[in-house]
């Protein structure tokens, strides 16, 4: 028997006093960690297969299970960490690129947590959202550079196509294929109920969901999966995906085993073939090509809907955004490097790109310096984790945010970061019918609605504390923010002062 170079990552701990051997854990675990040994009348585990998704812990009727990190450790080195050693063993065994899912777990600075929000005292009253109107409606799209008048002298109120959001939060792109049909249905129904939008990702739009078109952003990515006339016509807006925060500079890869009949029809590719979206769009090798695609899509939809261009936050993101703003895009979505993914090469996810906070601040300032901030709306994405992150993003300059990981949490995700295995026990990142049916969209959509309502309420409370009663007065209002424990350089990039100043 070959030597296994590394031990299991987790210990599955069972309290045998509590365990009633009902074998629910065994039935629920798609990783086949739990099994019953009839000879010894005992529940046993294959710890090495556990991904710490917490499904068994949550469903165990007697609370007999615990998943804990395996305390066994290699000889400590801050340079060659436990994780790095395992990864090298693994690659030596397979010769393959390491794959990961969801946002990077590495300890990069989280600027949201180093920014503090202001509140009114004495000279300016705070406002109680329970007693006074508190408004979070936003419009996304291109704004006119000034007032235009009709021939009769009245104000011309014609405006470019826009999205109207009841609260500045949208569900970020997650493709059908990377997530299940039930997850998609939950997102679509929640977006409709909330008066916001969800995003198809690059996997096309399932026929059953065309009815939610008014709350759908349809994505056009480098693989062009599922893109055709009806698809473009159905969406409220079209998003051109140039990049993704979790894997800037590379395309996507959905393995053939996830391409079943439904996914195949929706993506318009043969069953069982790998769905590979190329790293670049092969008709976009420069900014002028992007302009052509933007206007091709506008022509195709007769200038009735806004076009979003989504880019990953990379080093020269401000210059790129400036170029996009001048290329006919109505909205720019910027995706920070801590954003999630259904599958990405680990080294890319953990090392490429920059944080959304810095990218957002740089882009907003650059567009203002150039006097073109009005030309586009900005959507910030890539690890917007809670309502205070939303408030900080808007104060830094975002018009709205995209959230995805929090939406998945609402559906049951426990961030085990193994979406790429396709064996999601929560029925989210899987196409296996027995697993998909665990996610009930009826329950799922309500939980999403609850989540966004809760955030919206918190945003209103925080705004009221600042004496702001409409979210547009928060946008770009950086005076409401202070840094804590940041260098002068970081403060300069964020465009904020340090606490106490």
């Amino acid at each position, binding site marked *: 028997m070959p030597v296994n170079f590394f031990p299991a990552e987790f210990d599955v701990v069972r309290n045998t006093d509590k365990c009633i051997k009902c074998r629910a854990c065994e039935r629920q675990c798609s990783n086949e960690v739990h099994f019953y040994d009839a000879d010894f009348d005992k529940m046993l585990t294959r710890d090495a297969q556990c991904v710490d998704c917490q499904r068994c812990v949550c469903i165990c009727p007697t609370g007999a299970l615990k998943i804990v990190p395996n305390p066994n450790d290699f000889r400590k080195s801050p340079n060659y960490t436990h994780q790095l050693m395992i990864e090298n063993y693994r690659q030596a065994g397979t010769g393959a690129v390491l794959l990961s899912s969801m946002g990077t777990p590495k300890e990069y600075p989280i600027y949201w947590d180093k920014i503090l929000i202001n509140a009114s005292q004495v000279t*300016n009253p705070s406002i109680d959202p329970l007693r006074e*109107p508190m408004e979070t409606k936003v419009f996304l799209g291109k704004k006119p550079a000034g*007032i235009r008048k009709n021939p009769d002298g009245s104000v011309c*109120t014609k405006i470019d196509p826009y999205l109207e959001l009841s609260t500045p939060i949208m569900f970020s792109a997650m493709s059908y294929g990377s997530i299940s049909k039930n997850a998609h249905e939950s997102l679509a129904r929640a977006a409709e109920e909330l008066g916001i939008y969800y995003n198809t990702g690059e996997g096309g739009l399932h026929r059953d969901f065309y009815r939610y078109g008014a709350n759908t952003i349809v994505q056009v990515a480098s693989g062009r999966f599922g893109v055709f006339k009806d698809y473009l016509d159905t969406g409220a807006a079209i998003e051109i995906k140039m990049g993704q925060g979790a894997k800037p500079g590379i395309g996507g890869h959905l393995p053939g085993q996830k391409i079943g009949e439904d996914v195949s029809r929706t993506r318009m590719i043969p069953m069982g073939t790998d769905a590979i979206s190329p790293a670049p769009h092969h008709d976009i090798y420069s900014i002028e090509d992007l302009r052509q695609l933007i206007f091709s899509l506008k022509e195709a939809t007769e200038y009735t809907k806004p076009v979003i261009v989504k880019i990953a936050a990379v080093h020269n993101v401000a210059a790129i955004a400036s170029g996009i703003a001048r290329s006919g895009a109505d909205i720019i979505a910027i995706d920070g490097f801590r954003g999630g993914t259904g599958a990405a090469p680990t080294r890319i996810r953990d090392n490429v790109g920059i944080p959304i906070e810095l990218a957002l601040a740089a882009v907003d300032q650059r567009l203002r310096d150039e006097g073109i901030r009005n030309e586009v709306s900005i959507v910030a994405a890539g690890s917007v984790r809670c309502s205070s992150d939303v408030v900080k993003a808007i104060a830094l300059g975002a018009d709205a945010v995209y959230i995805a990981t929090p939406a998945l949490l609402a559906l049951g995700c426990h961030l085990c970061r193994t979406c790429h295995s396709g064996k999601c026990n929560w029925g989210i990142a899987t196409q296996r019918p027995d697993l998909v049916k665990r996610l009930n969209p009826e329950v799922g959509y309500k939980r999403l609605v609850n989540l966004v309502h809760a955030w919206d309420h918190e945003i209103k409370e925080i705004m009221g504390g600042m004496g702001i*009663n*409409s979210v547009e007065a928060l946008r*770009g*209002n950086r005076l409401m923010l202070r840094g804590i424990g940041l260098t002068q350089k970081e403060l300069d990039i964020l465009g904020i002062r340090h606490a106490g100043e």
Partner: protein
Amino acid sequence: MLLKEGDIRIPAGCAISGFISRDGNRLCGGDIVKSISYMHDRSNGLGGGFAGYGIYPEYKDYYAFHVFYNSNDAREKTERFLDRHFDVINLSRIPTKKIPAITNEPLIWRYFVNPLPTKIASSQLDEKEFVVKCVIRINNDIDGAYVFSSGKNMGVFKAVGFPEDVGEFYRLDEYEGYAWTAHGRYPTNTPGWWGGAHPFALLDYTIVHNGEISSYDANRRFIEMFGYKCTLLTDTEVITYIFDWLHRKQGLSLEDISSVIAAPFWSEIEAMEKTDPERAAKLKYFRNALSSLLITGPFSIILGYTGGIMALNDRLKLRSMVVAEKGDMVYISSEECAIRAICPDAENVRSPKGGEPVIAELNEEGKRKCL
């Protein structure tokens, strides 16, 4: 060391007052001083100021520049600049009266000027824009010089002190105008810089303001895209620029501007969609296209401009403000007492609703007399 306006943002509470004779009768500056003095407790001696309209009838076709200088050197530099860009018709020190309550005064000069046509032509700007650019250039580039009033047939007078003392210092009872506004300042800290007192003026637009807007930086960062530079970091400055941009440059009416900066709530607009869909569409357009100019937080302002004054409260009405009338007179003030002080039998005293503009302008007779 205390930082002056522009280096730090200083919140302030305040008193404001103003009136206009719609018939264009010329009213003594002493009246406005008396009015604001009744709200002594609403200021703390760290700033007071006035704006008078129609006060320079003999020079009404010339821009009247009021300038603070820290030194004669700054004055000489500024005058060289003025000579290069303007035809200077008259220059003099602004007459003042030494009083113990007002100290540390800078050099205060007044110039009546007209831009040189050749300079305007080569700048490719219209005349007013040319004047604005010159004023901004002096204020930003010449150390120790600050133009604090730059309109035609109007003038701003301001200083560090209680407003009644400022009025006496500038001998305002010797001026007559068809409209006056006044400001008493209650800043939470101040370096005592005269330029930081209010009103803030650009061309003939003046703003006196009581409040502390919570949207300040959102408004500032938006309006700065259009060539303005908010150097004082005060609410009054950014509000003046917003009016200048929307009114002078974009040609929006004052009523429409009110709907932009103190926009009706969505609930009101939605209700209006049934009763007045056209107006609802316009309001929705404003809240979409010009959303960055929405002003939140408490404010009550009086905008002065050639031929009129306008009062406006924030949409929640978080600051007091009353208006009253008597004959051809319209009065606006933070408190009724300041109106009663100069017009004991004022009529139609009322508090305008939040976001409801009150506009009082010269009537035909007044225009004939004053414009």
